[in-house]
Structure formats: C-alpha cells, structure tokens
C-alpha cells in the first residue's frame, strides 16, 4: 500500500520520468497500431517488431556505444528492409503473405539474436542493458533516452494528426483513395515508417517480443467500443496508457520483474473484457441479442397458434391448456412455460388456472403475424409463380422480420387481397384500411 501511495504521489522525480516515458511510448504505438489494425495488417506490426532487432545490434556494433539515436537509425533500416523483403517475396515468388511474414520475422529475429550474443560475448562493457530490448525495462528510461523517445512519440502523434484523413481513407478503401488522386503509395510508405518508428520506441518499454501486442491489442480492444475512427484512436491510446502506467508501477515496486509482460497482460485483460462485455459487439451482448430474437420468434409463433386455433373454432378468447397448444404445433416443451410466462407479463396473454387465453393486445399481435404470413404466401405465388404448397416455409421466416414499410408496399402492390393461396382469409386490422 505504501508503495502505491509513494508511486502515485509522483514525488520521486525518477517515477515521473519513467511514467511519462512509458505513457508516451505505449500511447503512441497504440495510435499507430490502430491504423495497422484497420488495414488488417496487424501481424505486419508483429514482423516489424521482431525485425528491428538486427538493426539495433548492428547499430551498436558499428558505433560501439548505446546511443538512442543510432539505435533508432539502425532499427529503422532493418525494419524497412524487412517490409521491403516481405513485399518482394510475395510479389516475386509463389509464397503467400502469411508465410512471408513468418519467414521474414523469424529470420530477422534469428540474425538479431546471433548479433546480440556475438556482442555479449565480445566483452564490450557498454553492452550491458542491451538485452532490455528483448523484454523491455521501463525503469531504464532516464535522462537523454527519455527526451529522444519522448520526441519520437510526439512526432508520431503529430504525423498521425496531420495525415489523419488520408490514413483513414487508405485504411478503409484504398481503391477509392487512389481514384481521388491521393498518393497511396507514398502514404503507405509513411504509415509503414511510422509503424517502424513506433516499434523502435515501444520496444524500450515492452521489448521486441511483445511489441506487437502494443500495436494490436489496444486497437483490437478499442474497436469493440466504437465505430468511429477518432474515438477508436483516443480509446486505444487510453488503453495503451493505462497498461503503460501499470507497467511503470510494476517496474517501480519490483525492479527484478520484466516490465513488458506486465504491460501486455494488463492490456490483454482490457481487450478480453472488451471482447466479452462491450455493448453492441461483445460476446455477451451478441448472445443476449440472439436469445431475445429467439424469444421473440417463439412468442410470436405462440400468439399465431392461438390466433389460428381461435380462427378455426371461431372463438379467439377461449382459454386453452398447454397440451392443446402442443397438439396444434410442436413447440419445444422446455421453453414453453417460460414463453407463456413472458407473454402474460407483457400483457398478451391471460392465465386462468392451468390454461391461457389471448388478451385483446395479444389477439392483435397474433392477427398481425398471420396477416404478414398470408400476405407473403400470396406474394410468392403471384409474383414468383411458386406453387401454393411451396410458399409456407419461407413465409414462416419472413413473418417475423417483415417491416411495416414492406408490408405497406405489399398491400399496395396486391391491392389489399382478401384470400391467400390456400383460400384462407387475410385478417386485416383497424389500421390497415385502404386510403
């Protein structure tokens, strides 16, 4: 608890710089990642993240010191080379995109590991801390590093701000962007460069191996909460910053812990919660929506059955036990009682001891379903020339989803017909009068 208070009071200047650095890094990679996600190239980010490793190693070998600017330059070159190699392999061989990504990713990474171990064994004292590139160490962000990486993060944010409209367009419809005369090739180049830049800065916080999570996961989580790109970017940056804060805290409390994995675990939890519980898109919401649609259909079928039985016996308000309903039509017995209870609660049915009867409102709903069913049967047989015994199944489905507008159009087209193809009366209500 004391740790928590000490951390969040931000009185330690070291804490401030680490938090600031981590926030900038995670948020800026989340922003750029949003576009790679939208272009369905999330794994390209993964490949770039692995591919910068040999560049970092080579830059160190060449300069002999751990200079952030040199490393950014080196990482940039190898990240670029990787993207170019992937494009070339896909364009000039029969190898498909996913294999090309996996191939370039693993080979660059292998070369990087070879270089890194070579450097470690070469006995250069300045190499200590180079392995923090593999798993990240937010606490290592101090002094000059912080300024350099902070500046890079700002460049990223400004560039995305300036080219927001163009990036949005190529993310959703590259062909359209091209017909508008946008330089799509150069924009793609810019976006790839920004991705490389984001990777180079982000690996300071989470390391090479988990960098792809910082590009993909915040964007994937944000996608579940909104359909607007602006909001999605802000949310992704927020999620990224939240996980960065958590990582900085871990790095403060337990310096022996690798920071990167904690950042990734936090952002993954956010993403998985979003997949499940986000309104509109989440798994729970989808399930609930499917269930309620299923309920609606079952209830409507019951009201229809009551209406048809009433029609046959010329007594719409007769009360009927569940067995009678089951004899008329095969309903799933398990959900029958539940559906009847819901109908009573909605005021469409009235329960009398062990039997049920339609209320006036329920009669109206049942009549409306039967009307749509028979109208559709007539439409199919009249306009699509289907035999009368072939139209029932289709009408069974459409009766639940026919909109009032379509129904009005059908009525107008067929001029308020009286009978369906089976010579059953199409039941009109009060409001269905012909103008």
């Amino acid at each position, binding site marked *: 608890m004391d740790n928590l208070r000490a951390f969040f009071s931000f009185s330690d200047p070291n804490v401030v710089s680490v938090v600031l650095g981590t926030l900038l890094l995670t948020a800026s990679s989340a922003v750029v990642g949003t576009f790679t996600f939208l272009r369905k190239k999330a794994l390209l980010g993964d490949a770039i993240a692995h591919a910068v490793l040999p560049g970092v190693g080579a830059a160190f070998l060449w300069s002999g010191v751990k200079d952030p600017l040199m490393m950014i330059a080196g990482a940039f070159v190898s990240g670029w080379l990787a993207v170019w190699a992937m494009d070339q392999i896909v364009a000039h061989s029969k190898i498909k995109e996913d294999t090309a990504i996996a191939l370039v*990713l693993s080979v660059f990474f*292998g*070369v990087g590991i070879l270089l890194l171990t070579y450097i470690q064994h070469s006995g250069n004292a300045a190499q200590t801390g180079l392995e923090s590139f593999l798993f990240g160490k937010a606490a290592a962000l101090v002094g000059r590093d912080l300024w350099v990486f902070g500046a890079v993060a700002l460049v990223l944010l400004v560039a995305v701000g300036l080219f927001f409209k163009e990036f949005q367009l190529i993310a959703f419809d590259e062909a359209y962007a091209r017909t508008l005369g946008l330089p799509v090739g150069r924009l793609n180049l810019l976006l790839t460069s920004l991705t490389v830049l984001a990777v180079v800065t982000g690996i300071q916080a989470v390391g090479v191996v988990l960098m792809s*999570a910082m590009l*993909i996961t915040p964007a994937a989580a944000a996608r579940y909460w909104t359909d607007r790109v602006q909001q999605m970017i802000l949310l992704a940056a927020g999620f990224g910053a939240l996980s960065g804060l958590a990582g900085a805290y871990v790095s403060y409390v337990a310096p022996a*812990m690798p920071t990167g994995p904690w950042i*990734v675990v936090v952002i*993954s939890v956010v993403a998985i919660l979003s997949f499940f519980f986000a309104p509109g898109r989440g798994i729970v919401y989808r399930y609930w929506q499917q269930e309620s649609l299923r309920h609606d259909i079952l209830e409507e079928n019951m009201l229809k059955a009551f209406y048809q039985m009433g029609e046959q016996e010329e007594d719409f308000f007769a009360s009927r036990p569940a067995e009678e309903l089951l004899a008329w039509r095969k309903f799933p017995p398990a959900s029958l009682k539940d559906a009847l209870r819901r109908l009573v609660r909605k005021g469409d049915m009235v329960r009398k001891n062990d039997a049920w009867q339609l209320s006036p409102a329920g009669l109206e709903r049942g009549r409306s379903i039967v009307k749509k069913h028979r109208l559709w049967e007539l439409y199919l047989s009249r306009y699509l020339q289907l035999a009368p015994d072939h139209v029932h199944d289709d009408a069974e489905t459409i009766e639940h989803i026919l909109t009032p507008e379509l129904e009005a159009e059908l009525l107008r087209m067929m001029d308020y017909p009286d009978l369906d193809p089976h010579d059953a009366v199409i039941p009109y209500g009060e409001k269905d009068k012909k103008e």
Partner: protein
Amino acid sequence: MTMDAVYIILTATLFSISCGLLGAFLLLRRMAMVGDAIAHAVLPGIVIAFLISGSRESVWMIPGAASLGVLTTFLIEFFHRRAGLQTDAAIGVTFTALFAVGIILISVFAGQIDLDQDCVLYGEIAYVPLDVWMTASGEVIGPKALFIALGLLVLNVLFVVLGYRQLLVSTFDPAFAAASGISVVLWNYLLMGAVSFTTVAAFNSVGAILVVALLVVPPATAYLLTHSLKRMLGLTVLFAFLSSACGYVLAVALDGSIAGAIVTCAGGLFVLVWVTQLLLRRKPAKELHPLT
C-alpha cells in the same frame, strides 16, 4: 570435427526435420502465423509443467504443452467466430497475452525453477553434449537431447506417414475431406497438438522463439522448388540438415548463439534459392517471346 560438434549438428538436424515436416502442412494451410503463435503460447504450459514436476524432461511437458497449443488454437477461433475479431488480430492478441503470462511466471518462480528468459530465447544447444545418458555401469551412451530429438522425429514421422492421406486431403480440399468422412476439425487440432508438442520438445535446444523459424523457413525454401508434397517434405529434410550444419560452423566462428546462427543460415539458403530462381526465370520468358 569433434564428437561434440557431431552431436550438436545431429540434434539440431533432427529437431529441424521434426519442425519442418509439420511446418510444411502449416505453410500449405496458410497457417504459418498460427504456428508462430503456438510456438510462443506454449510457454506458460512449459513453466507450469516445470513447476509441477521440477524437471525439464518429464512426461508432464506433453500434456502441459499440448493443452496450451490446443487452447491457443481454440482461443484464436473463439475470438474470431464468437467475437467477430479479424483473424490477424485474434492471433496477435492471443499469443502475446499467453507469452507474457509465461515470462511473468518465469520471473515469479525464478528461484524455484531452472529456467530463465535467455534459455527461452536462445535455447541451450551448446550444452547438449554435456548432459549424457549413462548405463548402470557408468558407460556413456550419448547426449540425452539427441535421444529426445530422435524419439520426437520418430513420432512426427509416424504422425505424418499414418495421417498422410487425411492431412493431405484436409489441407487441399476441406470440403472433399468432409464428404469422404475425414474430420477436418479433428485433424486440424491433431496437427496443432503435434506442433505444440514438437515446440516444447525442441525449445530446450533451440529456444521457443527460434522454433518458429524451423517451422517456416526450410519448408518455404522447399516450396519454392517443387509442386509435389512428397518432394517438398524430402527437400525440407535436406534444407533442415544444411541449415543446422552451416549454422554450427557460423556460430563457432562468431562465438554467438547456435540457434540464431542456424536460423541465419536457413534464411540465407532461402534467399539463395529464391534469387537463383528469379535469375533463371528471366531467360525462359525471353525465349518464349518469339512464339507469342
């Protein structure tokens, strides 16, 4: 060449053949990145199995790895189908999360288990000749890892030979496979189970991450050269051997990671074959010109 070098090259070759045989099917199914994901995601399974058994060569590794591999495959499908997440993002989110959990577990239990981040990354193939199997009378039979690699290769060859028809048909024509009574889902999970099992068995030697390269690069090089699956599998074996031998030599020369060097050589072989092919292809195009 010393006996140690022979042991190391032989072990690496056997592991890379195992990986390559399975990788060929992943490549043809366009699931190369799923293989990548599984190779990362088995890490928590390895650590948990390690914690339970306290050893690296125990039978616990098999269920530990297989369950994580199947879980990864399931989660990717689940996020894609039920939550409507695009496949590339589903792969990316799943494997990074599981890998991160694995690294955290390693850090938390660092005192209790003989596993560290470096070992996960690079493997310890250089130490293969040091850990040997001995008979009761103290006679040295050979390195343990070599026998593990051999056993693994036998299992994988059996899997590919016995399931050849099912794998072939479900890879190239899932609809026909289903019509002729082959369960596409079952064979998919079997293949993923085999991949995760192989990854775990090989991770000791080559590192969990570099297994990815062995899964993809030799089969991709072979794929450039042939249209026949059988020939592709044969060429994969050849490239697996060449990469391992050349990688060992390179690693010794540079005093670097052997696994990293093997991958570097595998990549070099790919570039060599590909560029040669590009250069050779220019000519026939010109020769055809007068006819058209």
